């Protein structure tokens, strides 16, 4: 009766497909009010006055003076207020909150803000304030460049990206005599609890946070729900009634976090035989107006900046800076898709400079078991760069297509990458996550704060427990994430849930099985009473991370991926259309192969959007295209067939060998598509590759762009 490794259907799949699953906007409470946020319209200045242009009768109105605790969003730095007091640091910053029982009345209420405007900093290269700087060094860069036969330099840029979870941000706050309950669309219940305790001046246990069914997260519901929940809670507290705050699409796009825009510069030394001798890399991220999670996004970006390659002499220097734009935050990949884009286009250009096959150059330098990374982490037997590269190249027919398509309007390109699974550095040690398993008459109930947001956590965690406990899957329940009932198993981010929380649950299940000693759950409960097993994360025995020197094991382990993109250039519209993608991912063990593949398929599609379509246009520090009409995400017709192969190379410290997977697929399509464009003679160094960019590249390119497209 093996259940790990089987593609069992998603637990809540039928409810979702029948429209029976209940999301936050589907819930109503007696006496509930609706809420709205009044926001700044200038990027920088001083707020001088707020004028109400409506009859306040029947409204609940909240500003910063209604904060009972501290007006800061508790996260890494306490620099961001829930509500503007005087200083305006970006447009779309919340100033005033309104609640009313009638949505129409609420929508028509007019508020005028008066400011003194200051000159904003909108260009990250001109910002003088860094939230975080990082330096990673290995070997001797001077010696590395001295050994080089060739030096290749390049600058690469990527823009903001919006998550576009189809369900926008939303919460309902329900006040009680001694605290606050929040039900919401969110990834990290305990983050929200912590932020609300500080805002409301309450002990954490007086704030109860419950996750509703969540319609997509992708990082957009990692840190931002703390703000939405805080606003709803302030209104609910003042009104003494439940308050629902659900964003519409425009507000969701204009005001919430984005993927950090990046500028990455490479200087690469390479020997004639293709061996990398020196990698000098500079990373600049635009963090927006407040710190949010920027330091850790930068950290992950820098730790993936070399790509999955071995080199003795490395310098990576990174900065994330402040500008007067809405803050950037977590987004699937968390800094890595930006730096992997730069690394993999640079690799392609190094191969061109050497006149070497780009696959051979990558094979020559790919990290192998026993190699050490830039931080000195020695890789285990599950270092699978070569396996994913070779499988993807063979499966896609890369070499044949590259030859056959020369001189046509069709192109093919690839990207090789890895992705650290779990929190960076000492993050997991500091989180010290706890997971629990409670014996029930039929089997067991999983108690974790890890959230289901579409990725399949609810089902895969149940599979791990069923397998370890040796009971049918149908006897395992997963409790609703509710801070009043479950231990803090950490945030549902960083591709950590299956690997880290799953491992804790595996240990709980094994101990529970031993305690049962052959008794059925019902018989045990009758004889001995209730049984709950709790396990806490234990640091690995070696490779401790040093945050001050950036040396040691940056991650427990890495997943490995290779993406091959095939594209066609429309000679009339200059659209670059993906026609097929081959994606190979090594993830340790696929607990649920179809769900694992679903992460690769979905991440690849989101990566294709990042590569080709998704462009946030900023005007005076505000998103000018905050609608799905002109911020384009891939439709069925923009997304080609994606051929997925999952490779398994078990990781010793993952449940049944599983590693993380969720974020990694996001890194491949950007550089793979850019490299496919290169094979068409387009020197693309910037994402997204819109028709306008293709036109620019075509007119600046020395080679002519093929003007005819030969169809198969």
């Amino acid at each position: 009766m093996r259940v790990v490794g089987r593609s069992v259907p998603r637990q809540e799949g039928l409810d979702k497909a029948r429209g029976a699953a209940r999301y936050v906007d589907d819930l109503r409470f007696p006496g509930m009010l609706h809420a709205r946020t009044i926001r700044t319209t200038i990027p920088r200045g001083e707020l001088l006055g707020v004028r109400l242009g409506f009859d306040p009768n029947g409204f609940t109105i909240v500003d910063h003076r209604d904060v009972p605790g501290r007006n800061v969003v508790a996260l890494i730095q306490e620099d961001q207020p829930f509500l503007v007091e005087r200083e305006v640091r970006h447009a779309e910053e919340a100033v005033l909150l309104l609640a009313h029982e009638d949505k129409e009345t609420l929508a028509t209420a007019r508020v005028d803000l008066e400011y003194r405007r200051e000159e904003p900093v909108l260009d990250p290269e001109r910002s003088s304030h860094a939230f975080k700087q990082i330096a990673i060094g290995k070997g001797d860069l001077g010696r590395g460049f001295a050994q080089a036969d060739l030096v290749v330099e390049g600058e690469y840029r990527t823009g903001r990206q919006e998550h576009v979870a189809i369900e926008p941000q939303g919460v309902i706050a329900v006040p009680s005599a001694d605290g606050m309950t929040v039900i919401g669309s969110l990834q990290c219940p305990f983050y929200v609890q912590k932020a609300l305790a500080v805002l409301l001046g309450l002990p954490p246990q007086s704030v109860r946070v419950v996750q509703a069914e969540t319609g997509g997260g992708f990082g957009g519901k990692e840190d931002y729900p703390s703000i939405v929940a805080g606003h709803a809670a302030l209104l609910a507290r003042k009104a003494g009634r439940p308050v629902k705050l659900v964003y519409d699409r425009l507000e969701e796009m204009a005001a919430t976090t984005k993927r950090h825009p990046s500028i990455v510069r490479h200087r690469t030394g390479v020997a004639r035989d293709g061996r990398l001798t020196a990698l000098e890399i500079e990373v600049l991220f635009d963090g927006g107006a407040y710190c949010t999670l920027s330091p850790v996004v930068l950290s992950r970006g820098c730790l993936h900046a070399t790509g999955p390659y071995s080199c003795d002499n490395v310098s990576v220097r990174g900065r994330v800076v402040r500008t007067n734009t809405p803050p950037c935050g977590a987004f699937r990949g968390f800094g890595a898709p930006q730096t992997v884009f730069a690394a993999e286009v640079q690799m392609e250009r190094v191969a061109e400079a050497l006149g070497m096959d780009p696959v051979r150059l990558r094979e020559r330098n790919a990290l192998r078991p026993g190699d050490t990374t830039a931080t000195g982490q020695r890789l285990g037997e599950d270092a699978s760069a070569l396996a994913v590269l070779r499988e993807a190249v063979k499966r896609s027919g890369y070499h044949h297509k590259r030859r056959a398509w020369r001189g046509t309007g069709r192109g093919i390109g690839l990207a090789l990458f890895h992705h650290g699974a779990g929190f960076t550095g000492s993050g997991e040690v500091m989180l010290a996550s706890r997971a629990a398993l409670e014996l029930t008459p039929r089997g067991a109930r999983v108690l974790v704060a890890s959230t289901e947001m579409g990725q399949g956590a609810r089902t895969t965690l149940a599979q791990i427990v069923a397998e370890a406990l040796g009971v049918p899957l149908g006897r395992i329940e997963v409790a609703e994430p509710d801070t009043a009932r479950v231990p803090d198993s950490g945030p549902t981010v960083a591709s950590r849930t299956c690997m880290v929380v799953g491992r804790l649950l595996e240990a709980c299940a094994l101990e529970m099985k031993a305690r049962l000693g052959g008794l059925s759950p019902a018989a045990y409960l009758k004889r001995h009473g209730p049984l709950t097993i709790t396990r806490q994360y234990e640091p690995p025995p070696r490779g401790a991370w040093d945050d001050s020197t950036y040396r040691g094991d940056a991650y427990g382990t890495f997943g490995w991926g290779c993406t091959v993109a095939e594209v066609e250039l429309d000679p009339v519209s200059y659209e670059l259309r993906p026609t097929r993608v081959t994606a190979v991912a090594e993830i340790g063990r696929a607990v649920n192969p179809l769900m694992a593949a679903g992460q690769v398929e979905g991440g690849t599609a989101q990566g294709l959007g990042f590569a080709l379509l998704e462009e946030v246009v900023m005007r005076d520090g505000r998103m000018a295209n905050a609608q799905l009409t002109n911020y384009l995400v891939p439709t069925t017709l923009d997304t080609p067939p994606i051929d997925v192969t999952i490779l398994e190379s078990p990781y010793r410290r993952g449940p049944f060998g599983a590693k993380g997977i969720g974020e990694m697929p996001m890194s491949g399509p950007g550089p793979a598509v850019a490299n496919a464009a290169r094979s068409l003679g387009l020197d693309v160094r910037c994402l997204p590759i819109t028709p306008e960019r293709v036109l620019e590249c075509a007119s600046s390119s020395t080679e002519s762009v093929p003007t005819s497209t030969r169809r198969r």
Partner: protein
Amino acid sequence: MRFVLNGKRADVDAPPLKRLLDVLREDCGLTGTKEGCGEGECGACTVLVDGVPVNACLVPFAHARGRRVTTIEGVRGRAAAAFAREGGTQCGICTPGVVMAAATLGPRPTAARVRAALAGNLCRCTGYAGIVRALAGRRAAPRPRVLAASRAAKTTRG
């Protein structure tokens, strides 16, 4: 105002310019129809009016007078099970709209027909692969492969 809702006669008192989406969710209590964008781009609110898929966020309630409106709650058949089985639903917020838009496809559609019929439905989770598998079948859209890394290709010769 009278109309036929999921095969039964309905009489709902709501303003004629209220969005059909809000009438269904608030006045009829049918929350299976979701709001994703409110601008007719994402298709999460797709319902059938006289058998034709429409975005309920763009349709005023007056438009439903005397017509047959079908929502996800009125759909029977095997589609839901296929979505659950083939990975056609992840976060699930787009799924009711996708199922409704696909309701007009006949039996055993090709992958190309499925893609054309669903071009107005955004899904941010699946890359549409599981959706195409659920509707066109595994022959038209194969499931992914799983291999031991040790059995992966040893060379790059295609």
